[in-house]
């Protein structure tokens, strides 16, 4: 099942690459939809409360103790569903964008996008650290060609910067992966299976060093302050569709890795590192939001809001409470949906106006009411408006932050305020106001464009009012994880009611 899920888009990518260019888009869409169907079938055969399932394990490289091992748990399932949903939507939304004569052509775009999808799915399904590392790094190659081949002037440099950051992180991770092998070999036959590694008795010092390697790699990926500088450049130069794949799918690997590997293999070190990580997350939240406010380029702005959001996710993860972890998992899904909508709609604006600069836009609202309306909804989702799905996850994360320390919560809450500023101010400057003459007559969204964002909008509203399906999948995972880490939720600080009454009576 999972192998089908991974190999289908990969084979599809190769097919697209060799098939005639006129068929690329149709073929690519067909493969993406087929992958979506496989993903949904996998979801229906998934049993809640059953841990890792749909497992496949084969020996891959015996000499290194490496297995081709796949499996799905709650976290993996949500990420897989997010990925298989977003790829067809991106292809639909960017149907004509990749035809640009100066870029690499639609065939290359579709092929690389499918390759990226396949490798990302492999990342989310891998239960062997070596396999994870291999596909984790391999995702960068399609991403590199997507950024460098399509988008605006200066994309070559942006792609270079992106790849250098990511590969540097990957090599730091390699050091830790090698370290794991050494530790594993010291305690018997070396193995990279996650289940074997979680059972390892890693010394405190060794565990902390290895944890640092893993964490740095994931902090570059996610990204987290101060390793985020590639993010805004990349989202600015790449096409919005590429940015969706990068920020909404690929970057999730960072927080995914923190949950699965940092907490899963190094529980002691994770607890030890909590203060530093929380501080970095808080800086990311506030700094990302403040810098976003100052941006003039919409795509840059959306990229930087993600820095803020990834700060929230990391905060939730390392608060080490059940609300925090569930909130973080939920946040990963919701951020994927909301930010994807925002990017895609920004892309629609770019195709109409030929610019992404806020200062060069105004008054679009009257010419293109549907576009403006959807942009507003996506923006409001980003700022965490109650009734839209990101609110639920943001709330859970904030609860856990206050639970961790009052100051952490207090700082994180300001992120919500800043989010309102950057979203609403951007909306006001681009959409409202008198309509300039050259904007009049701009076409509103067509059926294809509407169809590409409609599922995202439905999801935002649906999960805003009824997050139970997501929580049902996420909660068993987070319970298992926290049990493994060995933390219990603190009891309520407020004393029970009758005790409080007796105290007040005693005071009379």
């Amino acid at each position: 099942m999972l192998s089908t899920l991974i190999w289908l888009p990969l084979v599809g990518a190769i097919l697209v690459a060799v098939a005639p260019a006129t068929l690329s888009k149709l073929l690519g869409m067909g493969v993406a939809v087929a992958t979506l169907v496989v993903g949904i079938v996998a979801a229906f055969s998934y049993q809640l409360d059953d841990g890792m399932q749909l497992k496949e394990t084969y020996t891959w490289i015996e000499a290194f103790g490496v297995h081709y091992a796949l499996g799905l748990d709650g976290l993996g399932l949500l990420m897989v569903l997010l990925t298989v949903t977003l790829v067809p939507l991106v292809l639909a939304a960017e149907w004509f964008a990749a035809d640009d004569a100066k870029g690499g052509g639609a065939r290359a775009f579709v092929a690389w996008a499918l390759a990226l999808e396949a490798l990302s799915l492999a990342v989310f399904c891998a239960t062997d650290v070596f396999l994870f590392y291999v596909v984790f790094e391999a995702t960068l190659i399609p991403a590199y060609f997507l950024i460098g081949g399509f988008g605006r002037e200066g994309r070559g440099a942006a792609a270079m910067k992106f790849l250098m950051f990511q590969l540097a992180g990957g090599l730091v991770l390699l050091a830790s992966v090698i370290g794991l092998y050494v530790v594993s070999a010291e305690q018997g036959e070396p193995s990279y299976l996650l289940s074997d590694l979680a059972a390892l008795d890693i010394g405190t010092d060794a565990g902390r060093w290895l944890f640092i390697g893993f964490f740095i790699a994931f902090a570059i990926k996610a990204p987290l302050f101060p390793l985020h500088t590639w993010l805004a450049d990349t989202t600015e130069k790449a096409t919005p569709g590429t940015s969706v794949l990068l920020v909404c799918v690929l970057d999730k690997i960072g927080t995914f890795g923190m949950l699965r590997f940092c907490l899963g293999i190094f529980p002691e070190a994770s607890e030890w590192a909590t203060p530093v990580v929380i501080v970095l997350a808080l800086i990311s939240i506030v700094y990302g939001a403040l810098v976003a406010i100052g941006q003039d380029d919409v795509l840059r702005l959306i990229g930087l809001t993600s820095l803020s959001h990834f700060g929230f996710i990391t905060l939730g993860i390392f608060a080490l409470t059940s609300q925090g972890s569930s909130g973080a998992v939920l946040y990963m899904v919701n951020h994927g949906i909301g930010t994807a909508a925002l990017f895609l709609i920004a892309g629609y604006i770019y195709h109409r106006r030929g610019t992404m600069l806020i200062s060069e836009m105004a008054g679009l609202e009257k010419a293109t009411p549907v576009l403006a309306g959807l942009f507003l909804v996506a923006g409001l989702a980003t700022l965490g408006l109650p009734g839209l799905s990101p609110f639920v996850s943001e709330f859970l994360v904030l609860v856990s932050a206050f639970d961790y320390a009052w100051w952490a919560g207090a700082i994180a809450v300001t992120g919500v305020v800043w989010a309102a500023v950057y979203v609403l101010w951007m909306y006001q400057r681009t959409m409202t106001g008198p309509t300039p003459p050259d904007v009049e007559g701009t076409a509103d969204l067509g059926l294809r464009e509407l169809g590409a964002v409609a599922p995202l909008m439905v999801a935002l509203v649906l999960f805003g009012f009824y997050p139970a399906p997501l929580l049902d999948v996420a909660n068993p995972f987070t319970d298992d994880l926290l049990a493994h880490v060995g933390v219990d939720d603190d009891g309520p600080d407020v004393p029970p009611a009758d005790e409080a009454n007796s105290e007040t009576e005693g005071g009379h």
Partner: protein
Amino acid sequence: MPEFSKPTLEYVELLPLFVVFGAACAGVLVEAFFPRERRRLPQILVTVGGLVAALAATIWIATDIEVHADGAARGLVGAEGSIIVDGPTLYLWGLLLVFGILGTALFAERRLEGGLSSFAGQAAALPGTEAERLAATKGLDHTEVYPLLLFAIGGMLLFPASGDLLTMFVALEVLSLPLYLLCGLARRRRLLSQEAALKYFLLGAFSSGFFLYGAALVYGYAGSVSFAGIDQAVRAGNGDHGLLLGGIALLAVGLLFKVGAAPFQAWTPDVYQGAPTAVTAFMSAATKIAAFGALLRLFYVAFDAERWSWQPMLAVVAIATMLLGAVLAVVQTDVKRMLAYSAVAHTGFLLTGMIGAQGTGDLAIGQYSSLEGVLFYLTTYGFASVGAFALVTVVRDAGGEATGTAAWTGLGKRSPLVAGAFAFFLLSMAGIPLTSGFVGKWAVFTSAMSAGFWPVVLVAIGTSIVAVYFYIRHIRVMFFSDPDPDGTAAVSEPSLLTVGTVAICLAATVVLGVVPGPVLDLVGSAGDFIR
């Protein structure tokens, strides 16, 4: 008076050596007795025939070598102790012969130069003279390159198989002298080529001197030149320890020169750039394989008990080599020089693997040894290197090969297949997963880490990041840069020889990256050196 006994030779087990040297001599005879214009085909047939027969013999020997008396290794001690045919030897032989065949194919390529080989028409004619022009118009060709190649390969086969210091020195000279000559035979840019040959020769001769001096000191310490004898003496620990350390250091100089490790790497970029690219391709893979084989045998067998002395030394050399290679590669503007410095960096990675030597008892069950890691890395690097240099030969402009980086701009749009393949080889050298380079890198780094040399591994990781930068930059030049208006290179249509070589290297790089298991098992079953 000592009784003279006739030496016994294991003719069967030494067959590959005999075949290759025999073919080389046959090549000389062909040179002597065939008319000039009809030499090429017989030469190619003799060369390829000899190499294929030697490869077949190697495989045949490998299928039924027996476990050696000491239990840990398989094979036998041949030629009265001066040649050792064991698992690693046979693996290296196989590897060298494969790269020899690929090298012959590149040597034989004639379509790229419009019907002429890439070697000088008449090496004795001074560059720029009437004689040179005449040789070119008459379509003369130096077919001596094939016997020279065979002699070099013969030396390379002997080098890692040698069982004593004298055989090793002879092998070193046999492999080096033909290479010096081959480097000076380029058809284009002949002055550069001759300069490279002279430089290589002078420095090489100098390093041979170091090697001999070291051999003398070690003989003075151990009273024996055979590795087994030296090993016994070192374990016994008698004699002047200073003599031994001096000997180890001087021998290391001689061998580190051959692999191009810092601070003896100065010849690498000039020679790689000046030599005909077909020679560079062959040399970059085969010399490295042979020299590392010799280095491994010398240090793992003869100086095993002295590990604590040479491991730190090689660790320092490895760090210097990696840093120097990677950093200097960043500032290169010529593709061949960039690949040369990257070869230096890879030497550093190989040395990183080599210092990960551990006693057999220190390894966990199922854990692989540093020897296996290095052998595997040599395999992966060889294919990527030969493939990359082979592709350099097809990217040309009016002046021959266009090796300037600027000429490669926009190649990805004009010739996506060539640019894609070159990018793939670069990614493999950069160690990106799903290419063979990654598995190799993982293997050598893990050996060093297991042996406790984590600072070296951290440096290796750091230099890998630097190395990634210049590889990726070149990919960016090919795919995402607009073509340079003045003088961009185009891809010339090569014959099947070059295409086949590249295809084999590409296939090997993919297969070793995705399913390295069988080759790793092969390396594993090769076992240890015979001590």
